[in-house]
């Protein structure tokens, strides 16, 4: 296995295999990834980060593929991170976004990586952000992260992006309503995809009504667009809105603010992760075991157990 120095050397030369291997180490949190992150971080800051999210079946991958093609027309180097859920039962995952983005798969100006959620509860957002940082450091101008907008951590990933595009599709069903409630909060741009399907107009009206209730956020009123991604319709408009939003953020100082917030979150997450790791050593785990037994036996309450463990572990 290559040393970190060897890998970084190839990375800075622009070797894509090195980029790919570094991404793996970062994703797996192994093999010197912390050292790698420290080394590449100074080179980040160039890439604009866009999040694409929405319910399953909305056509997000097709949308991403088309948007990337728009970006490529403008000469941008693009990184794509496509997140798919890990099965809670088997621990495996079918990462099905790449197959939907074949138009861009062979483009040397695009680098795409599929990531599984791996059942983590917050680790994913950190890993995905780190992977985006690596791509940024490699030289990407634009990084598009696609997630299924169903879990909190996936919403967190979207939040870390500067512009979040929420893709919806005309569909009857309450699940979409519930979904919209969460997604509405983070949407900077809303796209109704597959707009040739029944119910498109009605849904567009519903969405506009919901946005009106939400009101503008950060001085930006999210536009509601219609598109048919698989036909290439409406894509230029979506891309245009992304550019507009990026200009707005830059001009209003909000981009800077967003970056600062991200950095703060990252530092806090790292500290919490470290505290967590440092705290739960073998001895403390044993204390936990004993405490559980005591609670089950009715000797103490869970809160008492907490106090006991903390004081016993020197806190």
């Amino acid at each position, binding site marked *: 296995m290559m040393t970190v120095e060897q890998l970084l050397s190839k990375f800075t030369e622009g070797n894509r295999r090195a980029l790919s291997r570094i991404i793996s180490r970062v994703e797996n949190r192994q093999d010197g990834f912390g050292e790698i992150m420290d080394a590449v971080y100074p080179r980040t800051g160039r890439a604009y980060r866009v999040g694409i999210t929405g319910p399953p079946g909305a056509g997000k991958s097709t949308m991403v593929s088309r948007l990337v093609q728009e970006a490529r027309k403008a000469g941008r180097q693009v990184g794509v991170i496509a997140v798919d859920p890990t099965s809670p039962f088997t621990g495996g995952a*079918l990462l*099905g976004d790449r*197959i*939907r983005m*074949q138009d861009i798969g062979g483009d040397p100006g695009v680098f795409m990586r599929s990531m599984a959620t791996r059942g983590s509860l917050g680790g994913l957002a950190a890993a995905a952000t780190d992977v985006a940082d690596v791509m940024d450091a490699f030289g990407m101008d634009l990084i598009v992260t696609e997630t299924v907008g169903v879990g909190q951590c996936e919403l967190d990933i979207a939040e870390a992006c500067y512009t979040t595009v929420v893709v919806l599709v005309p569909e009857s069903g309450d699940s979409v309503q519930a979904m919209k409630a969460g997604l509405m909060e983070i949407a900077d741009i809303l796209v109704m995809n597959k707009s040739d399907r029944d119910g498109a107009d009605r849904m567009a009206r519903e969405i506009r009504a919901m946005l009106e209730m939400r009101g503008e956020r950060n001085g930006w009123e999210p536009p509601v667009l219609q598109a048919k991604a*698989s036909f290439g319709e409406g894509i230029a408009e979506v891309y245009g809105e992304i550019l507009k939003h990026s200009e707005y953020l830059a001009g209003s100082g909000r981009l800077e603010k967003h970056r600062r917030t991200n950095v703060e979150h990252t530092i806090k997450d790292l500290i919490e992760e470290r505290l967590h790791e440092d705290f739960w050593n073998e001895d403390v785990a044993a204390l936990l075991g004993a405490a559980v037994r005591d609670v089950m036996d009715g000797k103490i309450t869970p809160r008492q157990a907490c106090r006991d463990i903390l004081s016993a572990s020197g806190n």
Partner: protein
Amino acid sequence: MLDKEDLKRFEKEREKWEEKFAASGLPFEATNPSGRATRPLYGPADIDSLDYEKDLGFPGEYPYTRGVRTTMYRGRLWTMRQFSGFGSARDSNTRYHFLLGRGQTGLSVAFDMPTIMGYDSDHVRSHGEVGKCGVAIDSLKDMEILFDGIPLDKVSTSMTINAPASMLLAFYICVGEKQGVASEKLRGTIQNDILKEYIAQKSWIFPPESSVRIITDILAFCADHVPKWNTISISGYHIREAGSTAAQELAFTLADGFAYVEAGIAAGLDVDVFAPRLSFFFNSHLDFFEEIAKYRAARRIWARHMKEKYGAKNPESLLVRFHTQTAGCTLTAQQPENNIVRTAYEAMAAALGGTQSLHTNSMDETLALPTEKSVQIALRTQQILGCETGVTNTIDPLAGSYYVEHLTNQLEEEAEEYFRKVEDLGGVVKAIDRGFFQKEISDAAYRYQKEIEKKTKIVVGVNDYIIEDEKIEIDLLKIDPEVEEDQARVLEKLRAERDGDAAGKALAALKAAAEGSDNLMPRILECSRVYCTLGEMIETLKGVFGEYKEPIIF
């Protein structure tokens, strides 16, 4: 059928019998690979509501459940039509003469992947694939060699080709012209069933709308010029091979058929003119009785819908005339000789189901294309079936069987339910777009595999009756590796010797017709006559119609 009193009495006796069965402790229902639960016994009550006239009828009479022709096999045995092709046109021509010499009664052409996907043999994407799973046909020149010494007014030829079907048909017509056989005399079939490509076989080129336009052009052209030609072989074989159940095969095939009927009508064609030339192609899988019931249900469903929904008046419009192929997916790579037996059972089911044409698989097809020896056995299987077993002496012998009639009814009900689902989704093309069929099929395929691995379904030689470290001792067919280079040379020569000007003009005319609404067939024929290649014609159409991208459904 039975009077009320008899029925009550029978039911009581049946209950008593079922109690005896239950006392044995054995499971009451057995499940077949399609997921169908089968009881240990069927009786009069199961077909009590069967109305002979309404539900069965007579052979050659509505609703055709018992067969499409009055005389069936007494008048004419099914056509023995072995799907065949490999290497160069000359290699395949030799095999066709061999098969005809061994008693085959119809030709069936298998094309290689480049031909199927519309690439010439010297295209970069054809590399490694030329002649490997079928014959390489790049132009009329190859077609002339393929049918060398075969009089087209004396044979019927089925061509398994879909997206480029119009071109292969044009080549065939041109070969006829050179032999002095008018197109009105040509008999045969082109598979030309693009909807099932999107669903199962996946050898598409253009998107659905344009593909259907090409098909309606073919329907119109053949109605006027090639009236004896079967313009579509609406297929379930591939759907089944991709892993579907019997009910899905039945339902999805007929749904596709209805979609073509609707397309033809929408294009302004008279249903009673084009529908008689629609034919079908089914799988014959291992569950013996389910397959027989499936064919009977197919005939009844199609007749009913064509008459009642589409108002067809010509009796020929109501017929499911079909070709059958025994199920490739049931063959094993382990102990391949066993496949001869599987194929024989499957062939019998097809015969008892009233097929018009039959292909029997060779035992070595899980390993390679068939050798002469193994395809001979496959052909002999049909000949023994037809000549020695006596199943052809009477028509639809299983009619009236409690089990088979019950199954036929069940399959019809299940198909109707699927038709409703497809309609709810907005029709076949929309359902394809949503991945409805594809998901049903891949789910069924996955379940089937799980059952084999759990051993709830036994496959002899694979998960039971295994021979450890078995050595395969049969000879396998090898494709001449020179075929690709030879074809490239042929193409070079062709391009050099033809009238390049005429070829260019013909392709331009094809492009213009594609951009407009003129029938494409005459333009394709002109291109063929001046030796435009298949790849050139397809490229021209791709430029106008674009290429299909599959919706990814897992």
